[in-house]
């Protein structure tokens, strides 16, 4: 596969390491009253869709950035590549 890095252009996916669903960005608050349940869902339950999937890749043999890819799990077509840091901020992870 080729991942079109937003800053560096197309790179072989072999330079990257895969983590999983981009929902891993949405780490719950440890002081939430349902923290146990929320962390269980965060840690263990996955949509695992057959189709578009937002997912985290790390450019380990590159610029060390985490990326959020939107990739189709049926065709492997990648329709969007974003810097995970930007996505995390957009999802409200700024402190």
């Amino acid at each position: 596969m080729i991942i079109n890095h937003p800053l560096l252009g197309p790179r072989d996916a072999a330079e990257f390491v895969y983590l999983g669903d981009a929902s891993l960005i949405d780490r719950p608050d440890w002081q939430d009253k349902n923290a146990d349940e929320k962390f269980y869902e965060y840690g263990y339950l996955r949509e695992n869709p057959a189709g578009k999937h937002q997912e985290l890749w790390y450019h380990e043999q590159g610029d060390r950035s985490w990326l959020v890819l939107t990739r189709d799990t049926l065709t492997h077509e990648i329709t969007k590549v974003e810097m995970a840091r930007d996505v995390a901020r957009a999802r409200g992870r700024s402190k």
Partner: protein
Amino acid sequence: MPEFTLISAPPLAGYDQSFDGVTLSAPADLAIVSIALPLGGEAAAENAISAAYGAALPAPGKSVLSKDGKARLVRLSPDAAFVIFTHATPDVEPHVAARLKGDAYTTDQTDVWTGLEIAGPRARTALERICPLDISPQTFVEGDAARTIMEHLGVLIIRTGDDGFLLLSASSSAKSFLHAVETSIHNTA
């Protein structure tokens, strides 16, 4: 006079070989300092870099020479860069830190890396065997810099001339790295 002295012995020190159409050598006294741009302080850091080196920090994937031509600024990612220059003694980080006046975080990377300069008309043909990146003259232009993986080793490749490249890889695996590049030259001879 101290009782003991330490002799510097970088892994590939003094390596310099010519092959048919390719030269391969380990540059002497290559110094590398990483620069991290503080969050929220990016502009100040970039200004400090410009002021110190007479050249603006380029975009990720690019490098530029300083105004005096003695240092190369390589932008690795949005908040990280290397400055590469020639310096023999192990005191480069304070030098760079001083030049940047505290506007950026600096870490000595000199001994983390080992460098190989490969040049000559057959340099690209040799690199074709290990480098997954498109380094054709029109695609990977002078000054372009990229980290990638060659023969299971992380490598920072910088195009430094028409057919010249500086390759940086981890110093602990320097011998394996040299072997990989030499094998490529041998296999394409």
